[in-house]
């Protein structure tokens, strides 16, 4: 702490000098007049990120995801050239987007292939399995999504929480089993969220977004961010009204909430894409699936014997809402303003949150006595948790 002015300056200089060299090198390679790397042919690429069906019109959002600027020259539907309008204009710099409006008398629930041809004659295509009117915001629809979100998120989680009295009465090893079961459940959800994020990015995002690495990066950032925040919460629990089990339960509720947000997105998007039958299935599946999430919250909470009955009930309801209600927001966003990029981000944040919760629970089990996490109840709990999730996921 007693650094003199000069030594402080030296520290800063030694940090800045290498960086200055990096800048110089970049200027030399890419700067004006540099032709060192002027070889090879850059291939243009555009990605059709979104296709919306309006009355007698198809609108597509096109993004330049290649290394060079492009000019949109032609739009087609099912490989048949159509007159169209590009807003604001057809010239797209890297990562710029434009809206291509194609007047077209489309038919509901038929598949369509939308093509965009750019100035060098390359055609890019996106296939829509079944055309349906774009969901435009109406209070009715918003209420509909809220009800679905409640069915999928809040109610199942609340039902799961009803296991609390049961978990409370059981022995320590059985309690460990339930905590481990939670770990298994969450592990499954985390992997599921990552898979979903990668799937969305593969189907809808251009290669230049590096979907898998984007997912990995967001998962890790979400994980360390929440880990840091969670640790603060637990630290504070020592000298605040929150007991440690309650703090952990709260973190689990937050983690699951982030996850359910992703589920809401999936349901909203499925309704938005017109696959109503598919989304009905999703709703039933998620509802069953999410009952198990209630158990995950109930596990650590049951440990807290100090809570009064009234305060316990308020906490259960509160945690149920924290964990469940994001499904409603997810459904709204997924239905009304779906964007594949934000979906990937939200799914990955959810996955990071879940892994963070897993670490916290595992630590709890260790503190409770099973230092190696190799007790039969722990091992069986994780395995059964995964299995239960897998079996209920088949329903989705």
């Amino acid at each position, binding site marked *: 702490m007693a650094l003199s002015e000069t030594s402080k300056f030296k520290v800063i200089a030694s940090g800045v000098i290498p960086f200055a060299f990096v800048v110089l090198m970049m200027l030399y390679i890419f700067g004006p007049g540099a032709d060192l790397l002027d070889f090879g042919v850059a291939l243009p690429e555009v990605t059709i990120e979104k296709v919306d069906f309006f009355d007698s019109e198809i609108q597509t959002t096109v993004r330049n995801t290649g290394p060079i600027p492009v000019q949109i020259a*032609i739009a087609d539907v099912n490989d048949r050239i159509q*007159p*169209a309008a590009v807003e604001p204009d*057809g010239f797209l710099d890297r990562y710029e987007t434009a809206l291509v409006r194609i007047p077209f008398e489309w038919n509901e629930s038929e598949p369509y292939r939308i093509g965009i*041809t750019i100035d060098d*004659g390359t*055609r890019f295509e996106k296939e829509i399995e079944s055309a349906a009117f774009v969901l435009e915001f109406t209070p009715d629809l918003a209420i509909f999504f809220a009800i679905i979100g409640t069915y999928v998120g809040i109610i199942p989680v609340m039902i799961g929480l009803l296991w609390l009295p049961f978990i409370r009465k059981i022995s320590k090893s059985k309690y460990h089993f339930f905590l481990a079961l939670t770990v298994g459940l969450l592990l499954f959800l985390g992997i599921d969220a990552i898979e979903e994020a990668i799937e969305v990015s593969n189907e809808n995002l251009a290669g230049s977004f590096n979907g898998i690495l984007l997912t990995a990066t*967001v998962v890790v950032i979400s994980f360390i961010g929440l880990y840091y925040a969670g640790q603060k919460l637990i630290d504070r629990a020592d000298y605040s009204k929150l007991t440690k089990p309650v703090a952990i339960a709260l973190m689990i509720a937050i983690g699951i909430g982030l996850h359910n947000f992703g589920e809401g997105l999936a349901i909203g998007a499925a309704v938005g894409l017109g696959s109503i039958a598919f989304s009905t299935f999703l709703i039933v599946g998620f509802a069953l699936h999410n009952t198990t999430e209630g158990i995950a919250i109930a596990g650590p909470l049951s440990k807290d014997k100090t809570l009064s009955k009234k305060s316990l009930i308020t906490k259960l309801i509160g945690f149920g809402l924290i964990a469940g209600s994001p499904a409603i927001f997810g459904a709204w966003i997924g239905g009304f303003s779906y964007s594949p990029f934000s979906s990937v981000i939200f799914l990955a944040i959810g996955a990071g949150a879940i892994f963070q919760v897993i670490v916290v629970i595992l630590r709890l089990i260790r503190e409770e006595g099973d230092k190696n996490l190799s007790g039969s109840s722990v091992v069986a709990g994780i395995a059964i948790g995964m299995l239960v999730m897998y079996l209920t996921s088949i329903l989705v």
Partner: protein
Amino acid sequence: MKITRSTLMIVLLSVTIGLSAIVIFPNFSDAESELKTFITHSGKVIRTTGEVIDPLYTVSTVEFDPMEYLREFHYGTVSKLSDGTTVREYTIIAEDDKVMEVSPGVFYNVWTYNGTVPGPTIRATEGDLLKINFINNGSKEHTIHFHGIHPAGMDGVFEAVGPGGGKFVYEFEAGPVGVHPYHCHVMPLEEHIIHGLYGVFIVDPKEGREPADEMVMVLNGLDTDFDTENNFYAANTIPFYYQHHPIQINTNELIRVYVVNMVEFDPINNFHLHGNLYNYYPTGTDMVPSFYTDMITLSQTERGIMEFEYTYPGKYLFHAHKVEFSEKGWVGIFLVSDNAESDESETEYGT
């Protein structure tokens, strides 16, 4: 310790804000404000502040002028031999480095004879002696292979002409009567054809044909993204050109169209005429028409002569009845005006 923690928080916060900024604000390009309108097939009027991309109906021009090509016949530099034989001399230069706007806003590397796709229409009378001075200014080997009757050494197959100024003189007697294609015959053949090295060779009968408004239509396709499927189809290269630039003809005037199908990848092409039927002479080798029809099917390099007259003025489509082709550009309009000579049709047809 405190400093590192808060730094971490700041980093996390800025990353989060950065990511959400990308999510929330898609970076649309700078807006234009002028309101434009255009009308679609169904008559719907679309208003947009953006850019209209409509190669179908919006009048636009590109470098190559299909209207000029349509009625342009090259008879060569004419001289006579001592025995009275007409000699027609042509110079044809091949190039393969030109990038041409083939549809408004779409640029494609065309390989050309005398700078255009199709190359110049060579026209001679049966029995004329043809001398074609071929110069290859391209970067690859090229030739000219004429369909017709000629000695083996003039076939343009085994006599590859080197790049960068290679020369060859094709000399043969024009025949037989009819309409024939010519094209490059260097391997890989398909590549040399689809890039545009082809043209039309017309041999007139000695006694001539009945005077008519004559035109050449090469039915071709362009595979601009090299996936062995045509992205565009056209009569004379430019998609939809004769739709927004109708071909003007007159009632009660004989129209003669020399049609040559040069489409690759797709096994067939066809030609359907609206509001009329035509006499069709396959390959143009016979003076008696084989069909009276409004629809013929053409395989690769299959060609023929169509003759027809319109009685009623107005707009008539002609297009591939393989509708995929017409919806990718092989469609046009004959705008038939009332011929001054006949004043019988005062009546308005249709609305």
